[in-house]
């Protein structure tokens, strides 16, 4: 039974995916949600495909019934004078179409709950996980690697085939941290740290973006996730430690101000970075009259300055 169910699911998923690709005329690589590159995205992909399969059955069945009824019982000159019967309903039929959706909902609910719980755990057990802190600040992504003491901005490097725990936080408005090929998103919220697991199966570069609107330049909040082999990752870390500049507290504070910056790399970050973030968030709405006058102008200046600068240069 189990294998049959699984086989059925696979087959339906395959049929659904093919139909979708044909409809959009795109290659699979261009549809990151349907091109999972890690165990988290894979689990979500399986669930998505299972739901698409079930929903396709519903759509086909209802469309067929609808079309049949519409054609057969449409008013035509031939059926002029036909008096439709006075049907009140049918307990049997109504019970059937209450039960069918119940069964479908159960068929969806069980894997949903299972995957929801699964995603809380490291995606694979075989390796020691890496932790990376992610902070969104208008309109940039700041990554800190507490185990290495280094920091990058607007891109992140991770070792492939190793579970990565992203600890998410925001300074200012919320954003949503989304790397569709590696897995679904989670919000970055001020003063509320959250964690999300991701893992890349193999080396490669995956696009990430903010999925939650956060103001003027939110559209440009994209970043690359570069998955490297463990060896290359170590090499990269060492190189950063040796060659990249240190990040002063002043520089870090400046990053938290609204504006856009290119990709950046630092061999260190301030020890009190967390506290600075908290402090910065606590200014929000503290004294609105002062903020309104002072803060507003500063903000204008910043965005004006950054407006037409490219953001991809190193």
């Amino acid at each position, binding site marked *: 039974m189990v294998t049959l169910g699984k086989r059925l699911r696979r087959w339906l998923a395959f049929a659904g995916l093919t139909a*979708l690709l044909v*409809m*959009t*005329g*795109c290659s699979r690589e261009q549809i*990151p*949600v349907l091109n999972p590159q890690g165990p988290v995205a894979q689990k979500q992909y399986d*669930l998505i495909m299972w739901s698409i399969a079930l*929903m396709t059955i519903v759509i086909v069945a209802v469309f067929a*019934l*609808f079309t049949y*009824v*519409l054609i057969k*019982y*449409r008013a035509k000159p031939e*059926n002029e004078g036909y*008096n*439709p*019967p006075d*049907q*009140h*309903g*049918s307990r049997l039929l*109504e019970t059937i*179409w*209450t039960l069918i*959706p*119940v069964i479908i*909902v159960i068929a969806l*609910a069980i894997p*949903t709950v299972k995957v929801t*719980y699964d*995603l*809380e755990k490291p995606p694979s057990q075989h390796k020691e996980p890496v932790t990376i802190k992610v902070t969104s600040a208008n309109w940039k992504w700041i990554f800190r690697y507490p185990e290495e003491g280094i920091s990058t901005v607007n891109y992140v490097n991770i070792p492939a085939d190793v579970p990565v725990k992203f600890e998410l936080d925001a300074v*200012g*408005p*919320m954003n*949503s941290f*989304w790397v*569709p090929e590696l897995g*679904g*998103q989670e919000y970055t919220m*001020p003063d*509320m740290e*959250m964690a999300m697991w991701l893992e890349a199966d193999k080396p490669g570069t995956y696009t990430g*973006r903010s*999925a939650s*609107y956060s*103001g*003027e330049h939110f559209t440009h909040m994209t970043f690359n996730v570069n998955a490297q082999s463990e060896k290359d990752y170590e090499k990269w870390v060492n190189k950063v430690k040796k060659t990249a500049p240190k990040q002063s507290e002043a520089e870090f504070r400046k990053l938290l101000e609204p504006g856009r910056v290119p990709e950046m790399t630092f061999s260190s970050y301030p020890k009190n970075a967390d506290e600075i973030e908290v402090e910065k*968030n*606590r200014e*929000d*709405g*503290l004294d*609105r*009259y002062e*903020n*309104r006058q002072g*803060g507003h102008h500063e903000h204008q200046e910043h965005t004006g300055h950054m407006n037409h600068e490219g953001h991809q240069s190193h």
Partner: protein
Amino acid sequence: MNLFEFKMPEHFIIWNDPLIKGAWVSIILATLGIVFVLTYFKKWKWLWDEWLTTVDHKKIGIMYIIASLLMLFRGGADALLMRTQLAFPDMKFLNAQHYNEIFTTHGTLMILFMAMPFIIGMMNIAIPLQLGTRDVAFPYLNAMSFWLFFFGAMLFNISFVIGGSPDAGWTSYTPLAGSEYDPGPGQNYYLLALQIAGIGTLMTGVNFLVTIVKMRAPGMTLMRMPMFAWSTLITSVIIIFAFPVLTVALALMTFDRLFGTHFFTISGDGSPMMWANLFWVWGHPEVYIVILPAFGIFSEIISTFARKRLFGYNAMVYSMVAISALSFIVWLHHFFTMGNTPAINSFFSVSTMAIAIPTGVKLFNWLFTLYKGRIELKAPMLWAMGFIPTFLIGGVTGVMLALAPADYQYHNSYFLVSHFHYVLIGGTVFGMLAGMYYWWPKMFGHMLDERMGKWAFWLFTIGFNVCFFPQYPLGLMGMTRRMYTYPEGLGWDGLNLLSTIGAFMMGVGFLIIAYSIYWSARYGERDTTGDPWNGRTLEWATTSPAPVYNFAHIPKVEGQDAFWLMKQKRKKGKKEKTPELKRIHMPKDSGRPFVFSFFWFVAGFGFVFEWHLIGFAGLLGVLACMLLRSFEYDDHYYIEVDEIKRTEAAAGRL
């Protein structure tokens, strides 16, 4: 807070964008045009006597529908601006700020100032007539509801030319919408305009609940009510339970912004997530507030045009009750991605999916109402038939979004955008247009042109699918909502262009509807029977348009589809005894609801710019109106038998 401070914002009059300059010019020209026409044709008194002071539910309904069509036009124009910007990669048609203001306005306008008044308009037109009664329970309150909505909408609409539009999204999550990151008056407009309109909506909920519970014609038990009346009853209950939450949420954010409280700020230990919770505790039931009446309208129309009794009446009622109950325990699915525990996400996933069960029951009951019917595809029925497949697609993608782990991939992407447009346009807008075509003869005494109606339907429906279906794959390709532009090379170009083409087709469809309204008023087929569709419910038992008192005699109801039963009886040659006419007790018109709401507008405008003196002065005006109302005892009059006889004779019913 300084009561006597009148600080001017940096830009009071917005004049920095060619589009907005164009808007200014057209606003001024339109205003001058209206003033000229009213003066030239000496219509000011007519406007005041017949419309601004009316408490007649039919006229209020008409005003609601006109207002929502205007808002549909503006919200649609916003949509076309956005689709133009997104037609090609790297377009420079709108800048980020302008785009952000437009999508915020579009969302807020379409839900609060288009969908809501449209459904309330339909309720006003149809409910008292369907129940066989002479007006709603509280006609004066009904006028207040309308004018509060109207002035709320006006307040929201002037924002883009005076002071600047809100730009934090219609969901207005803090801290983005807080005073730190959004200092301008735009967000205040959002808060206060919604507050004013929201109070009006709450009153509508109370009004229709009482009307339906207490004022049905004799013999009309609850289980004999038309399905639209049922949907309105359930909607009213949802409004009463949901709208106070919006009132509180808006008030708290207003306090945060105007008086420095800490409900949704990080400082002072407030919590931005609290806003998300309060907003969606209202926001999700709100979705059902705008969809259930559409379900009701479809039930009426499908049954009428299939010439068959509604299949499974009881199940239809129970499923709506179930949907309304579930609507209050699913709000968290709007933020599965905010780090909830797996237990919470699982619960809300399953409760959300469960909504598919009663909705599925309704769908099959509609299909089986059609089954063995004799389906006439007149314009209202076309919209109903367009609804079934469209809403089905919206519904199944809704189920897909309900799966929390899958939602992590769809959330805030164009997949979601497409989903909610499929249910809101395919459900609510189709429903309202269907209802508009259906009840138009009852409102104005003439039909909307059938041929233009078909053209509009096909253009709009095909355009709709061309516009929104490509957005499902766009979402899976990683395109997120509220992006104002996108680079080349992501494979998004073709689908976006297609989507824009579809949007313009919808626009053309809308223009045809607008033209057919004008054309039909002049040349359209007149409805002299009062029953142009061979209807089943009581609104078709009176003339088109209905006289001010609706029914000379209150009808007696003997079962579901009361008017159908009457017609069957008449066919069998049974003669009804007509009881003697009696004078009819009616509410007097009043200009106070208009003035009262205008004071709300003044108060709102004052608080938007934090000119507190004006704000409080406006509130004082509000209180003064309430005081005058309290001392008003002479607010009714009688229509005498002679006049009723004259009216009925003129309509050929005596």
